[in-house]
């Protein structure tokens, strides 16, 4: 029999987190700091709107792009947070999570052989999405001494005549790094000179612990070459609702919508009704959750300082990315040993790119009590390692 699987698919590397989670799932009493989703439930008033829409019998498809009222609210949100106006009718597309929008953007923009610059460590889906869309990923290995921000010289060095797209994953999973306004401004000339398009994955935009998050779309000349991606999962603790969106220039949005209609039709209707409520009345919930994450972030940084564990201070998302280089172990070995000896699960930095070697990702989407217990065990573990 012939091999049923397409070569392109067989050749895709499985997610590095997967392998590690398989070990975790076999261990019963392990404490995990590995999960990448909020520990909060979706605020009740938002869930209630979802339930109400079901009670009303709103169980139909929506239009392919999504409910008009939701697109209106999204347009208002981006305008009030970034000062950029998107036309809700032609420049906003509701997707099944931000992850669908990433896939659509790659497929809509890439011709065979087009190069896509992906700064790493970052979310594990960019490379496979680019590959499946026929593009060629070009990875930039970000540096800890730059707090994992993308520097103009790094971008310049990665550009070739074939460069089509740049992925900007900030606030960043797994490092927690952010790009501030000056960091972004330093890139815009290079982007324009080289006529590059941008996928700006801003799914963690509401979880930024310095001044407000700045999007690249707010800078001059950027809106027309950017696909702005955001969603409800992280800001409103709505992961299971599977709802995200893309804002893009009309000519791009219409093509993304074409792909979306052929494979998805439309995003889940119940989730869309709930999301309208989230954008209209969820501001306070977001602020409260952000404060809670920020408390945990400060707590973790202080614990690391006490342990003498080196970690740059991250200002975004809900991850910290401490260095474990002093122990002379690979990230994989470190995490496996930590799990075996102390039953604490953290994710090896290498799951997010080769340059994640020497780091581990710790999620603080956990209660302070949970973090305390886990950090206590990590402290014991590194003391044992230091004692040899």
């Amino acid at each position, binding site marked *: 029999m012939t091999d049923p699987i397409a070569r392109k698919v067989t050749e895709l590397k499985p*997610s590095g987190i997967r392998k590690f*989670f398989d070990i975790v*799932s076999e261990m019963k009493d392990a404490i995990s700091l590995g999960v990448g989703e909020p*520990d909060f439930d979706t605020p009740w008033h938002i869930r209630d709107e979802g339930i109400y829409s079901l009670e009303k019998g709103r169980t139909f498809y929506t239009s392919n792009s999504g409910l008009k009222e939701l697109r209106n609210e999204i347009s208002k949100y981006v305008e009030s947070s970034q000062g950029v106006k998107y036309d809700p009718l032609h420049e906003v597309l509701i997707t099944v999570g931000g992850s669908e929008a990433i896939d659509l953007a790659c497929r809509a923009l890439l011709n065979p052989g087009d190069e896509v610059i992906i700064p790493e460590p970052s979310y*594990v889906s960019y490379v496979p999405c680019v590959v499946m869309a026929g593009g060629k990923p070009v990875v930039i290995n970000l540096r800890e001494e730059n707090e994992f921000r993308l520097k103009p010289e790094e971008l310049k060095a990665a550009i070739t005549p074939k460069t089509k797209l740049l992925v900007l994953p900030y606030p960043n999973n797994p490092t927690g790094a952010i790009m501030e306004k000056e960091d972004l401004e330093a890139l815009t000339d290079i982007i324009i000179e080289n006529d590059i398009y941008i996928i700006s994955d801003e799914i963690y935009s509401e979880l930024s612990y310095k001044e407000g998050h700045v999007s690249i779309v707010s800078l001059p000349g950027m809106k027309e070459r950017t696909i702005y991606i955001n969603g409800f999962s992280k800001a409103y603790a709505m992961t299971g609702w599977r709802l995200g969106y893309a804002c893009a220039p009309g000519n791009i949005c219409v093509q993304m919508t074409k792909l979306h209609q052929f494979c998805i039709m439309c995003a889940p209707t119940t989730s869309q009704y709930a999301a309208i409520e989230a954008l209209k009345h969820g501001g306070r919930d977001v602020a409260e959750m952000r404060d809670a994450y920020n408390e*945990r972030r*400060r*707590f973790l940084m202080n614990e690391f300082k006490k342990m003498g564990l080196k970690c740059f201070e991250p200002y975004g998302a809900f991850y910290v990315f401490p260095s474990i280089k002093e122990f002379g172990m690979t990230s994989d070995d470190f995490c496996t040993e930590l799990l075996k000896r102390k039953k604490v699960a953290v994710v090896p930095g290498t799951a997010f790119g080769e340059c994640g070697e020497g780091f581990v990702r710790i999620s603080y989407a956990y209660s*302070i009590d949970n973090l305390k217990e886990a950090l206590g065990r990590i402290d014991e573990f590194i003391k044992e390692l230091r004692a040899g």
Partner: protein
Amino acid sequence: MDKKETRIKILKALEHEARVDIAELAVRLGMEQTDILNEMNEMEKEGIICGYLTLVDWDKTDEQTVTALIEVRCTPQRGQGFDVVAERIYKYAEVNSVYLISGGFDLLITIEGRTLKEISRFVTEKLSAQEAVLSCATHFILRRYKDHGTILAKKYEDERQLITP
């Protein structure tokens, strides 16, 4: 962070975690420990912080308690409104809280006793006997689902699944 904001942050934290370690709280809020202690002191003196309580679910203990919520209608007194009658009521040790409310009644009282009898005795002999009290409606609390912002009925369980990416 200005003083007002600082105070609100401290109060919000203490309202739910009265026993929090202040050094830890300082780290979490990005403040100095001494600043928190000073503010707490000041707010205690100003009567903003009135106490540090423990939220107890007595139903889970062997101790028998009965809680009732009593709505009271009463005649206000010239120049003093309901203050005098409220004071006469809140002085009873078994009375837990006394609120002035709007609507069909004037005061809302919560009271704790060991038995139904104890509470009915309070209502008939003490509360209704007050000259200013015109009538009252007593509601016994059967179950507390949520109190002081804390859900008592159910414990939080982490049901998140392992998922990649």
